[in-house]
């Protein structure tokens, strides 16, 4: 039984600010051989809001995330980011269009320092090439200086100690590596941020701190697509929730509506079907 609660198309007011759709998946289908990992998924993520994507293991969340960030080839359908629509995004083009992401298993760049790692996230923002780097053009130097300042500000913002700047990022504790990854994503000034299980493997205190950080990012206006298993986190953070089941959208709407829906409760919270 497929139930859909469509979100309204016109701008809605969230926490008193105007919100608009920045990421939209239309009829997104990803097939591997004969298997449909995701079929006909429609999804909207709005600025100033967190949209949670939930579902049991194998529901197609990861495939959906990979398709939205250009890592899985769409069989049919398209993805719009900030007004640009395509069915054949490459990962770097999608990043340039304004989508930043983190990975389920933290993926930093080996022994790069924290500062360098975060700077990489700003790569798409500068259009110069080899000669700008070699001859240190004014625009390149200015951009670098500004980016370093932004990176330092982000190190503070995500709650990393200020002396980690020149430490190899992969030598930090797990929770801090997560924060580096988020800072690396945020420095690109993304329109939409895709967080793939950012709270996995964290203790209660770390979860609370990182939830607060995600909340702050949302307040700054970024649209966030959040993959998460923890219902408490979703309840406190997500404005909207979409439930995936066997690659298909089971239900979508405001978090309260979705989580109180009997079918979701049955599937997710293990209660007997009402």
């Amino acid at each position, binding site marked *: 039984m497929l139930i859909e609660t469509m979100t309204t198309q016109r701008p809605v007011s969230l926490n008193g600010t105007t919100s608009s759709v920045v990421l939209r998946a239309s009829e997104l289908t990803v097939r591997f051989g004969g298997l449909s990992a995701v079929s006909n998924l429609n999804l909207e993520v709005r600025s100033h809001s967190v949209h949670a994507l939930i579902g049991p293991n194998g529901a197609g969340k990861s495939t959906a995330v990979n398709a939205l*960030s*250009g*890592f899985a080839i769409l069989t049919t359908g398209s993805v719009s980011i900030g007004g640009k629509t395509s069915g054949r995004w*490459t*990962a*770097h083009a999608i*990043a*340039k269009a304004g989508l*930043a*992401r983190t*990975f389920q298993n933290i*993926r*930093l*760049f*080996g*022994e*790069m*320092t924290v*500062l*360098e790692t975060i*700077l*990489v*996230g700003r*790569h*798409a*923002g*500068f259009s*110069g*090439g*080899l000669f*700008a*780097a*070699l001859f*240190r053009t004014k625009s*390149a*130097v200015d951009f*670098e*200086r500004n980016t*370093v300042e932004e990176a330092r500000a982000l190190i503070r913002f995500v709650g990393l100690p200020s002396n980690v700047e020149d430490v190899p990022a992969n030598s930090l504790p797990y929770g801090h590596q997560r924060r580096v990854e988020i800072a*690396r994503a945020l420095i*690109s000034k993304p329109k939409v941020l895709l967080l793939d299980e950012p709270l996995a493997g964290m203790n209660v205190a770390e979860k609370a701190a990182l939830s607060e950080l995600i909340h702050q990012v949302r307040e700054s206006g970024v649209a966030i697509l959040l993959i998460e298993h923890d219902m408490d986190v979703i309840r406190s953070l997500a404005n909207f929730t979409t439930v995936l089941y066997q690659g298909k959208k089971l239900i979508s709407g405001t978090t309260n509506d979705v989580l109180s829906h009997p079918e979701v409760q049955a599937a997710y919270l293990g209660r007997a079907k009402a």
Partner: protein
Amino acid sequence: MLYFEQLLINGLILGSIYALAAVAYTLVYGVVKMVNFAFGELFMLGAFITLSLMVPELSLFGHLMAMPDLSFFPAALIAMVAVAVLGALIDRIAYRPLRNAPRMASLITSIAVSVLLQSLAQTIWGPSSLSFPETPLAHLPSIQLGEITITGIEWVVMTSALLAMIAMQLFVNYTSLGRAMRASAQDPTAAYLVGIPVNRIIGVAFVLGSAFAAFAGILYAQSFEFASPTMGFAPGLKALTAAVLGGIGSIPGAAVGGLLLGLVESICSGYIPGAAIYQDALSFVLLVLLLLVRPQGLLGKKEMNSHARGSLTSDRNDKGSWITAPFRLMDGVFASRLMASNLIKFVAIAVAVGIGFGIQSDYWLGILVMVLLYGMLASGLNIVVGFAGLLDLGFVAFWAVGAYYTSIVFVSVLQGMYGLDISATWWVLYANLIVGGVIAAMFGAFLGYPTLRVRGDYLAIMTLGFGEIVRVVVTNWVPVTNGPMGIRGIPSPMLFGYEIGSTRALYFFALALSVVLLFCIGRVVRSFVGRAWVALREDDDAAEAMGIHGTRYKLLAYACSGFVGGLVGVFYAHFQQYISPISFTLFENIVILMLVVLGGLGTMIGPFVGAAVWIVFLQASLNIPFVESFPESRYILLGAMLIALMLFRPSGLAAKARQRLVMG
């Protein structure tokens, strides 16, 4: 008509031998997913050991020794067993510890093993080729098929190859050991969990593969009646080509690929005029085209194209063993604050200038020029291998392009066509440094573009193929390059009417070039470009997700590395005043790669540290009596050192001289 049939037979024989050796690559690749470049050398050892057992006396290490004087069959059998054991031993010592290391580690290790074995063979049997004794196969009756005669040797080669491959196919598909091999190939972890001793199974693959390589080598040697330390190189690469052609991992694929390659080679060189001399390049052209169009081969699956993840710049393998103790001593030096400061750069330049004035011996100054030259070359290769993390075995081609470009401009065009002396056109050299670099860079981008569609092992094989194509073309395009004779009479550099001919002047010239080069590379690396390269090296997916256009930056790395290679090539030609194709071999490429690894991948100073250590050792060791009589033995050490580095300290000497990737 008979001509065609003869070519057909030749092609089938060559093809059977390639197919046999291809089985070796395919078996090991199928189980461990690694290309063992050393099979070419096991092929050669099979031939040499058989030969040695079949003669009454032989000169080993320069001393005449009594040998067993066996007949062919027991000698061949012993040789195959010996090589099989050696193959398993190599796996146990050099490859097994690297199973979970980044791909590049096992690739470099297998190249090192290959260098080691080849140099060892040169030291034992001498560098020249030995004639293979007559075997009983020569007396077998020939078969008459209509007008075609197939000699005893020919049909024995073909039928035994066929039988061996059928036996292998049956073994893999119908025995429990074969099933265990297939299971390990599918998923080593799962195989291990259900109780398959995966490491032993891999050992079996190496034993069988090595025996096949030796078998192929023995057949090759007795068909062509010689054995030489370098005989395994070309057939080894062709067998690898055949394996890829057929679809690596598949035994019928190896058979089809081998036969096809043998036939194409034989028939093309028989019918296309002038093709015979390009025969060696032909198979590489075929390989390159194939990798572009259908990288999985004719009968294979698309799996060699796996993603790069992780690099060799971390010293996680350094578990504090005594072998790396001297390296760790260096760590304190390279990690010090002084090394990161600008002061050290001025001190280093001042010391280098002081050395230039202080040393009186022309001989040692010449060696120092070589140190700088190899340091610059290694720096160029380091851009691709160290920073961008792409293994490049065709780098020497850029070097060759620069060297040949300037030589042709000065010797054939300015001097030959216009009768102009260098004193009139001295400035052309300086333009050439740039133009030669740019041509090589364009060449790099041109070669890089198709290459980037493939990854990992295929990338290594493909760059190797390109390098070999360039070398073969340079060797055989006599009207332009003067072929193997090389180009003589290249003028020394001049500057405003002053000849830079003395070794001291050339040293300063090389020093100035090195400083400028390091300055430029440093600037590029300390910027978003360097960060993009390192990000791609460490995790290319995550880098793409940051908006880095992977293909563009990898191409840029190839182009930059090509530029450096071309520029150094221009200098090299004017420094040596003579160039020939033997300077631009794969072996030379491996040596340059070794310098980068020894010094420290992805560091600025590493390539020069590596060059200094190796070139000075190369000269200084000539005073050691053993090295004096066996100069090749130094390369045994090179191979051994490289293996040890990969096992214990892949990050090299100057690991701690980590390059900062931020401007300023």
